[in-house]
């Protein structure tokens, strides 16, 4: 195991009594509890942690937080592996396993780096331009690029962990647990508001953890500990560490991804959720999300060993890690001097501080100078040297206007470069809340503008960077939020903390270090994750892009998993420079959820596997299972599809089931059909308006087939409705449409015709339905009843009776979807299985055969009966289907007027026809397109499509239903159905293949 040679002897928030071992890229390393993967790697002197996305350049750790663009790792193994984890956020645990992304075969020897040699031919817009090239080229590029430039791997096994969702309400949600957030939470909680404080790190304190500064005579660590202790003692406060607020949605709805057990690794407790998504409805929100330091844009600024100044400071203070031995600072503001002092005090040699400003005069700069550290005013890094680790920097002077490097270059050896180009408030959530940003020229950053929702930003997130001011602003924001939420009893803001303010000199933005004479800026990286250089941004401007949203899409700047946290402002500032526009005029891109990448698991929560979608089973389900039925999903229902006997293929089984029904008796579980109980004095009037045909003359005890349309005249659903009593109807719907039809009826009753006294209730699950069909059906049912007269004269087709079947109270409908004599027997659900058992036992002597949905489809297609959703697709009228006799001319109904619109009157509308392939063995695929004749070259006009297609055992040939232009006038004509490997001729016919006279319904 390699030694932690870069670990400082003392300090840091790590537990030196708890050493850990971990595996990175197959090598063993040591670390401590309290480390992140990044800090532990740096403690071992490992800077090279990955390869870049496009050019596969070696990359190191840039930051110490969630903004990290480079150190992306594949974390964990097997089903528990996750891509795109930021090493800077992964808490170390014993036996952690992680690997670099984007490199193959290894991080040190990377074949993809060959792209790097061709960076001149892979400029911005490469992908788009390639798309426009001859298509054949793209095939080649895609193969190479996709293989080389992955963004991690998906797990190859199911995730063993489980995840939770949680819904909560609070008065004040404080996002961010640095000093600002802690102060805000304290004020709001002291006013008795329910407070949630969420922070993405494992402990509260934000960027100040381990810093040696003072507040109110305490160290910052003591101040933080005291604040956290007070918050923890208040029952109205929920503290959520390791919790990233990932989304800010309408009406103050925010989502928080809490990593409950990630830091325990596979050693975590299996009976606890791994992560939890909190769905919070907050009355008020305080955004104390801090700020991100910006990198400097110079040549080779992406070399391992070059990091943000604040990150280096964090590694020293919080993790007791020296990120290097010999450092050069490069800054345009005073904050880097604080970092320089921290590093110098930790024993790191500070070779020089380069400042863009001519005369750095701030108090911190003076302190640095007093330590004897060389400060070079108006200097910049012209280029970094070294490949897998920075080894030196080339330093040059800037001219007055900072657009040219002048003088002679000086080389300074170093193994660490700390850069700071100023700070960008983390305005992502504010932007997600739809707030508009405004540019603050004094502080050279975007700050939140007016609030759109009930939120306020405070502290660094608001562009306030001094510690004391952050605390004051936090307290004020917390109290104001509580007050606005109605909680302000006796609360007041504590007095401002005692702290000597550090006088700071203003930042002087230098967005781009100019290239040396004769060189380009194509190694000046702006977006590290997506390998976008300053030259790419310049090219986009030169090629005519003016909108920052277009710049983003053209260069892919900000489109990585980090959403450009460290790159956006630099990119649009450089873009503005080229266009000659001010930064506010260039504008910003829109930030979108999630703030940082999240697992699919945490979004889905418990809705996986059996809980993903409910499965609905009929009361007879177990019987079907015991007979080896194959099932098909119809909506949420699981319906028997066919019942294969040993050795039977699906076609064998369906043939047998169809023939048994045609010749003897078949039985179908029809329990899933939608059933709606409709009552009220105006029920008949209501049905008259809903259905295309008339209902007022339907006698009690009779049934009628009905078709309903949308107001656009297109068929929506169909089914049989029976009149059970004076004001009582029983409507059936297709299985998949049951809920939609009920909602449709309710909509009209509530919104358009509230004067109608009609009441609808879903009965689908209350009743079980067995449909017996076939010439012997009457014999069977008659045997099982004593109080229903099955004499055909007394129980005619399309009527219904109530009585006992097999001793069970039942509603029996004599209707038919197969064309055979059939009875639908409805009983209470609890009696469904008993009814079924009796029918099967008694029916045995008649050769009763259960049939599934496939045989049902064949039988109804032989009769030309449509299925809503199969023959119809929302563009088909009842007239198109040949149902003109069912369309009343005497009354209005929903959709009627649309049937006389010019479009529905068109003569070339597609109409329902039968289709008989010339080769009777050829079963056409459903959905096949139909043409007149096949031309030599496209376009070939299509005249229709196949809606249903089966092999009919009874007819001993294939049959199909189709919608064909002018179909009804074309019976007898032959059309062509082009398939992948052949063209099938087929003859148009009437859409009835079996018993067109309808005599079989009498048995």
């Amino acid at each position, binding site marked *: 195991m390699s030694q932690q040679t870069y670990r400082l002897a003392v300090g840091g928030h790590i537990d030196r009594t708890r050493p850990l071992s971990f595996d990175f890229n197959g090598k063993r390393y040591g670390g401590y509890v309290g480390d992140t993967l990044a800090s532990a790697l740096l403690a071992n002197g490992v800077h090279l942690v990955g390869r870049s996305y496009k050019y596969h350049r070696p990359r190191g750790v840039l930051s110490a937080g969630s903004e990290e663009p480079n150190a992306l790792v594949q974390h964990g193994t097997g089903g528990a592996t996750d891509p795109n984890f930021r090493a800077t956020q992964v808490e170390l645990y014993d036996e952690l396993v992680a690997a670099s992304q984007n490199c193959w075969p290894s991080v040190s020897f990377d074949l993809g780096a060959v792209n790097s040699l061709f960076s001149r031919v892979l400029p911005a817009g490469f992908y788009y331009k390639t798309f426009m090239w001859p298509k054949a080229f793209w095939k080649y590029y895609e193969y190479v690029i996709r293989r080389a430039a992955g963004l991690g791997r998906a797990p190859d096994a199911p995730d063993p962990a489980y995840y939770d969702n949680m819904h909560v309400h609070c008065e004040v949600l404080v996002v961010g647990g640095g000093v600002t957030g802690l102060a805000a939470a304290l004020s709001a909680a002291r006013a008795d508001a329910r407070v949630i404080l969420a922070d993405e790190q494992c402990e509260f304190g934000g960027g100040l953890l381990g810093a040696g500064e003072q507040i109110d005579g305490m160290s910052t660590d003591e101040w933080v500990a005291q604040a956290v202790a007070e918050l923890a003692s208040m029952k109205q406060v929920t503290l959520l560490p390791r919790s990233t607020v990932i989304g800010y949605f309408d009406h103050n709805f925010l989502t928080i991804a809490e990593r409950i057990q990630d830091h325990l690794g596979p050693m975590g407790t299996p009976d606890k959720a791994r992560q939890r998504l909190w769905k919070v409805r907050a009355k008020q929100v305080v955004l104390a999300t801090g700020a991100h330091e910006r990198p400097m844009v110079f040549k080779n600024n992406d070399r391992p060993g070059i990091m943000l100044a604040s990150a280096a400071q964090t590694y020293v203070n919080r993790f007791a890690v020296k990120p290097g031995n010999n450092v050069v600072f490069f800054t345009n503001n005073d904050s880097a001097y604080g970092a320089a002092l921290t590093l110098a005090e930790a024993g790191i040699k500070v070779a020089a501080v380069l400042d863009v400003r001519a005369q750095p005069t701030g108090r911190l700069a003076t302190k640095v100078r007093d330590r004897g550290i060389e400060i070079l005013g108006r200097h910049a890094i012209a280029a970094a040297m070294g490949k897998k680790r920075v080894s030196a920097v080339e330093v040059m002077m800037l001219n007055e206007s900072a657009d040219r490097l002048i003088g002679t270059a000086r080389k300074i050896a170093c193994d660490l470069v700390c850069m700071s180009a100023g700070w960008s408030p983390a305005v992502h959530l504010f932007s997600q809340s739809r707030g508009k940003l405004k540019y603050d020229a004094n502080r050279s950053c975007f700050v939140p503008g007016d609030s759109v929702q009930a939120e306020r930003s405070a502290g660094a997130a608001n562009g306030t960077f001094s510690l004391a001011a952050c605390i004051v602003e936090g307290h004020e924001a917390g109290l104001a939020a509580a007050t606005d939420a109605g909680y302000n009893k006796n609360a007041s803001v504590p007095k401002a903390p005692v702290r000597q303010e550090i006088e700071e000199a203003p930042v002087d933005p230098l967005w781009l270090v100019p290239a040396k004479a004769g060189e380009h800026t194509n190694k000046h990286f702006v977006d590290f994750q997506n390998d976008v250089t300053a030259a790419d941004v310049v090219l986009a401007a030169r090629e005519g892009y003016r909108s920052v949203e277009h710049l983003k899409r053209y260069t892919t700047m900000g489109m990585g998993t980090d959403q450009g946290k460290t790159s956006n402002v630099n990119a649009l500032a450089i873009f503005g420079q080229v266009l000659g526009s001010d930064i506010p005029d260039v504008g910003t891109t829109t930030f979108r959820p999630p703030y940082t990448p999240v697992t699919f698991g945490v979004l889905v929560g418990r809705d996986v596997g059996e809980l993903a979608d409910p499965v609905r089973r009929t009361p007879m389900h177990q019987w079907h299972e015991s007979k080896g039925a194959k099932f098909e999903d119809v909506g949420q229902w699981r319906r028997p599809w066919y019942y294969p006997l040993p050795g039977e293929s699906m076609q064998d089984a369906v043939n047998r089931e169809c023939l048994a029904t045609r010749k003897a008796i078949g039985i179908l579980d029809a329990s899933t059909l939608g059933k709606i109980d409709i009552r009220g004095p105006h029920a008949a009037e209501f049905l008259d308006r809903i259905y295309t045909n008339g209902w007022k003359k339907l006698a009690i005890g009779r049934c009628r087939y009905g078709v309903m349309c949308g107001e656009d005249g297109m068929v929506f659903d169909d089914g049989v409705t029976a009149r059970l009593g004076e004001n009582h109807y029983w409507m059936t719907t297709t299985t998949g449409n049951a809920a939609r039809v009920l909602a449709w009826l309710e909509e009209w009753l509530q*919104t358009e015709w509230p004067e109608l006294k009609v009441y609808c209730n879903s009965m689908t699950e209350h009743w079980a339905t067995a449909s017996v069909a076939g010439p012997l059906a009457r014999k069977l049912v008659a045997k099982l009843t004593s109080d229903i007269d099955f004499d055909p004269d007394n129980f005619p087709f399309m009527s219904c009776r109530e009585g006992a079947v097999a001793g069970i109270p039942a509603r029996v409908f004599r209707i038919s979807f197969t064309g055979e004599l059939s009875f639908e027997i409805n009983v209470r659900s609890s009696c469904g299985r008993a009814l079924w058992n009796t029918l099967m036992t008694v029916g045995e002597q008649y050769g009763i055969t259960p049939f599934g949905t496939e045989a049902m489809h064949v039988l109804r297609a032989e009769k030309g009966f449509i299925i809503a959703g199969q023959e119809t697709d929302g563009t088909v009228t009842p007239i198109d289907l040949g149902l003109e006799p069912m369309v009343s001319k005497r009354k209005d109904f929903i959709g009627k*007027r649309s049937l006389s619109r010019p479009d529905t009157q068109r003569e070339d509308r597609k109409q329902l026809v039968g289709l008989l392939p010339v080769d009777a063995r050829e079963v056409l695929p459903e959905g096949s397109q139909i043409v007149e004749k096949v031309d030599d070259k496209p376009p070939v006009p299509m005249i229709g499509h196949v809606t249903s297609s089966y092999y009919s055992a009874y007819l001993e040939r294939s049959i199909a239903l189709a919608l064909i232009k002018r179909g009804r006038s074309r019976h007898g004509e032959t059309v062509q159905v082009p398939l992948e490997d052949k063209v099938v001729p087929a003859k148009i016919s009437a859409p009835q293949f079996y018993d067109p006279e309808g005599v079989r319904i009498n048995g």
Partner: protein
Amino acid sequence: MLLIKCPWCGDRDEHEFSYGGEAHIVRPRDPEKLTDDQWADYLFMRKNPKGAHLERWVHAHGCRRWFNVERDTVTHAITAVYKMNEKPPRSSKT
């Protein structure tokens, strides 16, 4: 995610509701008397304003009642909720 105040159930998450489009479109008394254009106007044409919009919602996964909402299509602020048989708020410009 909107927070919608069902007149019967109170504040509930948007995902309990279904959207029903523009409110106060009355079905013509005698559609057969309308010209094609008039019928098309009823059937297809909607206001789609930028700003205050009167629209219908149904508490589909709750009490299943329809009601009206005044919502700003820019800010999503809900400024009024009223029952089907009630008149829109006076302030409404639509």
